[in-house]
């Protein structure tokens, strides 16, 4: 009796939450997949017709935005690796007793709403704003110089909003490195550069990998930054999907686009994982 109880216990514990995830995470994906193959409109209803044309339409109409989103995502991710590594390195090896204070300062943006801090950037970067206005008055910048509406503004916004997601995992990986390993490398006559390249960098790689996952996926599917800081020249696929779903209620095309985006991101992540070696991926996934 007792033994049977013990066997059932984990299932009873998992059941409510598992069902919730099944119904509201897994089932919606299937609904959306089915919707992406349907025809019709919101008034007369949709019918499943195996309409693959939704996908080819979506791709041919919005290829530019899709490619742009991926390019922005890749650039923001690469920029963040370069920007974040030194920060994580310094906090991990030089932070001393204040490590958690520095990490807290890195996390400060999370205490302000995502939308609000992006709007705050618009206030700073606008043409009459505190940054550009004085520079233009001094004649350091031509009057027609803009930051808002450019790809630079959107990518900078993405980098700003997702920086903590890169610093944290890299920091965790670096923090775990036993200092004696680095000392051993130095004792064996490795130069600081060599010990960095041969010891620290490989050990930090799983952290960088986790950071890339945490940054690339949300950055390339974001629509807040491009809507607030960009222009019609910088429209990202997220904006298209959001408008198709919420404004024009063109559900089949919107679903097809959303699915395409997920497929592309999944393929990208898996290709990246393979290139890096599956062992690292499992380590990251198991965390």
């Amino acid at each position, binding site marked *: 009796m007792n033994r049977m109880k013990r066997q059932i216990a984990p*299932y009873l514990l998992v059941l409510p939450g598992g069902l919730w*995830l099944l119904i509201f995470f897994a089932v*919606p994906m299937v*609904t959306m997949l089915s919707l992406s193959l349907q025809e019709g409109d919101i008034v007369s209803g949709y019918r499943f017709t195996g309409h693959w044309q939704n996908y080819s339409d979506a791709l041919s109409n919005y290829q530019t935005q899709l490619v742009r989103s991926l390019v922005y995502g890749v650039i923001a991710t690469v920029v963040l690796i370069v920007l974040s590594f030194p920060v994580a390195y310094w906090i991990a090896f030089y932070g001393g007793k204040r490590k958690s204070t520095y990490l807290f300062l890195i996390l400060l*943006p999370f205490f302000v709403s995502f939308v609000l801090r992006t*709007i705050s950037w618009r206030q700073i970067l606008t043409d009459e704003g505190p940054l550009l206005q004085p520079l233009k008055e001094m004649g350091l910048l031509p009057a027609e110089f803009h930051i808002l509406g450019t790809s630079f503004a959107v990518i900078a916004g993405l980098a*700003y909003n997702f920086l903590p997601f890169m610093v944290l995992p890299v920091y965790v990986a670096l923090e775990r490195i036993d200092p004696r390993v680095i000392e051993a490398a130095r004792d064996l006559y490795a130069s600081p550069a060599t010990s960095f390249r041969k010891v620290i960098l490989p050990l930090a790689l799983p952290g960088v990998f986790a950071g890339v996952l945490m940054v690339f996926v949300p950055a390339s599917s974001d629509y807040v930054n491009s809507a607030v800081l960009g222009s019609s020249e910088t429209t990202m696929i997220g904006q298209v*999907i959001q408008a198709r779903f919420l404004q024009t209620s063109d559900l089949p095309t919107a*679903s097809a686009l959303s699915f395409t985006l997920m497929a592309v991101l999944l393929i990208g*992540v898996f290709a990246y994982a393979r290139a890096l070696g599956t062992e690292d991926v499992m380590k990251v996934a198991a965390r």
Partner: protein
Amino acid sequence: MTAPTLEQPTPAEPAPAAKPRRRLTGGGLLRTYTWLIIAWLALPILVMIMFGFNDTKGRYNQTWNGFSLKWYGRLFELDDLTKALVASLLVAAASTVISGALGTGIGYALGRYSFRGSGAMNLVMFAAIASPELVMGSSLLSLFVSLNLGLGAVTVTIAHVMFSISFVAIVVRARVMTLDRSVEEAAADLGATPWVTFWKVTFPIILPAVFSGMLLAFALSIDDFIVTNFTAGTTETFPLFIWGATRVGIPPQVNVWGTLIFGVGVLFAVVSTIRSRQGKRD
């Protein structure tokens, strides 16, 4: 960083012994760099706080017109904003409680038992965390539309519970895995039934993890924009109100509320860190 100043001889002395260590100079450069990054991170927050003190005439809050506290006195003047804040709090509270309970169940089961299907559970949780919010939000909208379910605070709460469960489960799982089983065995040796052992011994030990999981769920819910945008219909939460106001101009009250939320969040984090440090010292 204070220790080297004690060791360093005064600059006037030609001290051959005080050869500067290369690692420290490199550290100094990195230190400046890190502070620059922190300044970059803090800049828009400072601007947000500053414009809450702006003496503007109306909603238009783009240029600096001098210092004023008047918006702090007019916090509840905009009904839509107040409603949105209340909705945000209600949704966050409900989703924290529900995802706290469901996530704790999963986390406890995964940390304590090895059972068939645990791998699949881990995979689903990983997928729910790694999936783009845009895809989760749009697929939930597809489901709600197909079911003819009216969108509102309930659908938003359903969505928030969905993406919070995994985070709670992971935090709780980590605590359960490192739990010292001998404490439970001791309780059993002293004649406690499994039921009593769980509530008197095990549960109090994992409670801090449950709380931090729920805190995470609350933070995720109150700041969520993308999934909420898809599942809210005409209901507005605080981030949705800000989003809707971007076209007509953000009222200064938003800056004030943003500042207050920031202040409370930071205070909460600092106090809980200090308390947990004191707890460890005791």
